[in-house]
Structures are given as C-alpha cells and as structure tokens.
C-alpha cells in the first residue's frame, strides 16, 4: 500500500537493525510511550530484531488502560439511564467496571453505540431530540481536538441534548511520574508520535533536560520504530540527552496551532487519577466552566460515584514499565482477553493484550520459531 509499504520494507529493516547492533555497546532500557507503538512492535515483531541487552518496555500510553475504575463506573451509571444514548469508541466496550462492561449493559437494554468520531454524536443528538446523547471522551492529547470540536459545535449549533464524560489525560506529566519513581528503569523514551502531531514536542524539552533522558518522538510503522530506537541508542551511547524528532513527516516542534487553540478554549488542565499510577497533578483535561452545560459528570451527578481502586495490581507496574506482561503469573492462564483481569489485557493497545494476541506467552517463543524457520526451507 502506498505510503505504508515503504515503512515496512524488510531490506531497510535489516539495515537499521545492523546499525543498532553496530552502535550498541551497553545494555539499555527504552520505553515506547504509546499503546499504538506497543501494538505495532509486537504485531510486526520489531522487538525480535533487536540485539540482546536492548530492552523495550511498554509505557502508559494506552488511554483505555489508564482510565480509572471510578470513571468507568461513572460511565456505566450514565449509560444505564433510560433517556441516555451512550456513545464510545469501540475499545471501551469491553472494559469491565465494578460489575459490568458496556457491551454487557447493552445486552441488558442500555443504548450503547460505537462511534468513530465524537461529531457523529451531534448527528445522533439532532435525530433523537428526546434523548440525551453522552460521549465518553477518553484519550490523550490526540483525541482532544476532535472532542473539543464536538463541544464547540454543539454550543454553536444550540444542541442541548449532547454532553461529554471527559477523561482526558496528558502524556508529559505521566513521563515525569515515571522518571520520578524510585523503581524507574527507563533510560530513554520513544515519544508519542500522534500526541506530538497535535501538541508539538516543545514541552518535552524541559523533561529531557531535567531528567537527562533522551526522548525521540517516533512514529508507528516498523521502520519508524526501528529508526526511533536507533536514534535513542545513539544518544545513549554518546551520553547525550535531547529531544529528537524521528516522525518529522508528521510532527513539528510547535504542533498543530489551530487544534491546540481549540483544545485550550474548551478544556482546562486538571489533576487526574491514572489507573496503576495514581493521582498525577495537572495531568488531564476537563471542560472549562463556560462549557459546564456539556459536562455529563455534572449533569448526571456522576462525580458522586466513588470507587476505590483495589489493591496494587501488576498492571500498574506494567504501565510504569517496571514489569512485563509475562512477569504476571496470571498472564495467559487466568487472564486472557476473553476474561481480562486487568485493563492492560482489555484494550487492543494494552501491553498484555498485544503480548497475548501476538504471541508473547513466553519470552522464548520467537527463538523457537526462528529455529524451525531454518529447517523449513522453501515451501
């Protein structure tokens, strides 16, 4: 496919791989921040091309995984209201709250719809004037502009039966939390390409400086990832720590100015709880006061629902890059995408789900495969 195949070339992958091997003299731990990157790494087997001692750990950049149980319970409370049409991106459908998931609620009569854009909710609101259409606005900075646009348009068009349950989170404060953690192992980051397409990478510069950590803004195709890894290793080997931009075809230093402008008019920065990490100050968005009429949390008094996050879970350690999915004894045994024990197993972008789906039941599986590749010959 044009503009995609170019980034999946086996030949170029081989060249980049050789260059990483040539450069690397020390063991390093690199975190890919974004869930989309994790998915791509495991789907294409990028991690198997890396030399021994170069370890990739998976970051907190899966919005479904870091959404706290409390917010999911609030969403379910709203979705259960008979007048509500509850809209969500597909990922959230199977994430269990305390006693149900959205797809289960749907089977019990709640009207839950999967949408591809929050703007679809405005159409729904117009064609269902007697109902309240609520959108579950989960995501990082990437999805914030479209969500902001939906609220902005709703006000502009005088749509009154639309609201949004906002659970937006921001990447830089999460990276800071990881770097501040005493158990941190991460020595370099592959920065989130999509997030930076919106926000630019200026705000990562003080982070890189303060914690002396290389941050390479990286794309999502296999060659993007290999090149990002190469750039990170180069910095580590040379003892440098700077923000570099591998994803220059999409990301600029200042990002998308109109999108940022719209986001800042509709949302304001607030403290947010992250599943597995806890409260991080100034790490999310909520609707500004002037858009309070579109705030589903307020309209349904859902903020009164408080769910205590149960005891510490390994998914928190996975989200911070301290542990890997198969460090968990439940992985692939009691816990599978069919019966998820934790959010990291639910979302397609969750590290556990990616490992499970693309075959990381045990660390040795790939080697075994390579071994019998040899005797297979040409079939």
């Amino acid at each position: 496919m044009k503009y995609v195949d170019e980034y999946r070339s086996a030949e170029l992958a081989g060249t980049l791989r050789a260059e990483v091997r040539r450069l690397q003299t020390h063991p390093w731990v690199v975190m890919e921040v974004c869930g989309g990157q994790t998915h791509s790494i495991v789907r294409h087997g990028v991690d198997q091309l890396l030399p021994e001692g170069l370890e990739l750990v998976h970051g907190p950049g899966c919005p479904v995984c870091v959404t706290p149980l409390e917010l999911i319970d609030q969403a379910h409370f709203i979705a259960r209201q008979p007048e509500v049409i509850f809209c969500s991106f597909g990922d959230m459908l199977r994430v269990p709250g305390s006693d149900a998931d959205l797809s289960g609620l749907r089977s019990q009569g709640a009207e839950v719809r999967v949408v591809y854009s929050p703007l679809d909710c405005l159409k729904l609101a117009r064609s269902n004037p007697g109902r309240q259409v609520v959108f579950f606005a989960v995501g990082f900075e990437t999805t914030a502009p479209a969500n902001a646009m939906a609220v902005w348009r709703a006000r502009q068009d005088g749509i009154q039966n639309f609201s949004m349950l906002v659970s937006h989170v921001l990447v830089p404060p999460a990276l800071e939390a990881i770097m501040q953690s005493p158990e941190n192992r991460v020595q370099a980051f592959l920065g989130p390409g999509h997030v930076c397409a919106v926000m630019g990478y200026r705000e990562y510069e003080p982070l890189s400086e303060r914690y002396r950590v290389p941050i390479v803004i990286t794309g999502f195709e296999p060659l993007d990832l290999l090149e990002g890894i190469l750039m990170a290793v180069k910095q580590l080997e040379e003892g440098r720590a700077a923000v570099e931009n591998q994803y220059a075809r999409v990301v600029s230093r200042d990002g998308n100015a109109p999108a940022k402008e719209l986001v800042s008019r509709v949302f304001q920065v607030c403290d947010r709880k992250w599943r597995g990490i806890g409260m991080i100050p100034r790490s999310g968005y909520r609707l500004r006061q002037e858009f309070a009429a579109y705030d589903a949390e307020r309209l349904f008094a859902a903020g009164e629902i408080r769910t205590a996050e149960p005891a510490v879970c390994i998914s928190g350690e996975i989200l911070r890059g301290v542990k890997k999915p198969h460090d968990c004894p439940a992985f692939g045994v009691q816990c599978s995408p069919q019966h998820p024990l934790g959010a990291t197993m639910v979302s397609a972008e969750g590290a556990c789900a990616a490992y499970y789906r693309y075959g990381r039941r045990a660390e040795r599986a790939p080697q075994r495969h390579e071994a019998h590749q040899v005797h297979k010959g040409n079939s």
Partner: protein
Amino acid sequence: MNSKMPNPSGNVCPLPIMEHTHVVLGHGSGGKLMAELIHELFLPAFRNEYLERLDDQAVVAAGGARLAFTTDSYVVTPIFFPGGDIGRLAVNGTVNDLAMSGARPLYLAAAFILEEGLAMDDLRRVVESMRAAAREAEVLLVTGDTKVVNRGDADQVFITTTGIGVMEKPVEISAGRARPGDRVLLSGHVGDHGMAILSKRENLEFEGAIESDTAPLHGLVAAMLEASYDIHCLRDPTRGGLAITLTEFAAASKVGIELIESQIPVREAVRGACEILGLDPLYVANEGKLAAVVAPQAAQRVLDAMRAHPLGRDACIIGEVVAEHPRMVIMKTGIGGSRIVDTLFGEQLPRIC
C-alpha cells in the same frame, strides 16, 4: 467464570472477571466467546459423532448415499450492500458450507422472518436475487417458511437457509485432517465482504469502492477435486476471517500452522480501510473465498486448478502445516519478525487512536 479464576496471591488485579448473564454480541462473533457457548451449552446438549467434528456441515449416511447437510441464518445489515444483498448471501453461504465438504449442493430450504413494515419492493429485490443466485449455484429452493413479526422485533428481514448436497467423490474433508507437511492454500484476496459491509454500515467512504466477494464456491471446489482428492481441510473463512479458520484447523488437527504474511493477498482499499479503523484483515469476513489444506505432493496441481477457475485466479500458497507448536498459528511478518495469530475473543473493535 469467577469460581474458576482465583486471584493469584500478590497480584490482585483491579478488575472483576466477567461472567455473562446475558448474551452479548461477542457470542456471535466466531471467536472465543462463541466457541465457549458451543462447547458449554450446545455440544453437551446435543452431543453426537457428527456434531463433535464441529465442521460447518455434517456428512451423514442415508439410504445408501452420503449426504452433506447444513444450515445458516443471515441477519446482515444493511440488507443491500456493494457487491450483493442478504438474499444472495443466504444462497451462497449455505451452498458454500455444503461445498466445503466436497459435496455437490442440490436442494435448499429457506425460512423468512419479516419485520412488519418491510417495503414489499425490498422483499421482491431480495427474492429475485435469491432466485438468480440459486440458478448460478445450480440448486433448487424446494421448501420454505414465512413468519412476520411486529415492527422492531426483527430488523427488516432475517433468512435461514438449509441445504442438502450429495457426496459423489470418495473424499473425507474435515478440519481435523491437516498433517505436518501439508500446504495451506487461499483462493484470493481476504477481507472484501466484511469491509464492504462495514463501510456501507458506517457510511465510510474509501478511495476505490470495496465490494462484497459473495459467490458460490462449489464449482471451484469441484475443479480442485478434479485435480486431486488429497485435500484434507476446506473452509470458507466467513465470520472471524482467515485467522479463525486457520486456528480452527490447527486446533482440530492438533498441528501447528506457519503463515507468510507477504503471501496473503489483501486488496489495497481493504488494507487502507483496515488501517484506518484499526482492524486486522485476517479477522475480517469473506463470503467467496476458501482456505484449503492440501497434501504437499498435490499442492501445485490443486493450485493450478484453482488459478484456472474464475473464482480462484488470485489463489496462492500462504503457508505450511508443521508438527511444532501444535494448535498454534504463527505468521512470519513482512519485516522478518514473527507473531502468533490467535483466536479473537469477541467482536473486533476499532481502536481509539
């Protein structure tokens, strides 16, 4: 499932385990939830030697003949879509389930559940399309039933077709017959039907229209059997796509399967649509394709026969059956890595970003 899943000590996860007290859409997805339903409810209730094979059809003996017998319900929405409609699908789908046993399809029965208020013109179009499809597939629709339900109790029209075919060749084709060394053949591009439906349903417009591939495959199968009887498994990868069909072969035969990603044909428009929606074309439904597991010495002959048939022009060998990693399908990726192709658990859900 709570009783089966004790929390491992020291690793208390924050989410409860779900037990489904109600049917969810995932139970009909062709993935693990559906397998669970079949294994825990239907199979224990009706267990017999035919059902246990879990093929898409049963081959039974009656009056000295070997007959293939199958049934399938069609509830697709929208009922008209690029490349076909529910009527054509209802004929071709059941014809294909019969053909995948190696049988020659003969007779169909059709049951219609109609929603009050369905436009008579739409029903006529569906029926006309079934008539044309039955003629193409060389089957007779010999009996049927009609029910009408209140508005809202069904979605326009649901059709169930049941089919009978005769086994004229001494072949034994079943998901459990794959052997190490066998080759895996695919008759053409995957993902067309599912993406045609999804694009129409969600009003997504992609460069280059995607059309359903719905087609009767009995002629293609006949041509393959002309070339060789050494065809071990045959299935049309409908719901759940190629991935589910191959994982079912691997599980039923207790063998491993190795695929080469670059050998699996996917149309440009389908790949693009899948990239945008975060779907994997290997898991997207087809309605006019088949996957075959063929003995190594017969593979080339069968492939040539497929390529000579209009519905198998783009056929290719996509992998091999191996003794290693039994019940597991492993795919070599384009950049030289590898990954497991696993069963899906429920519906394939589009990603957030």
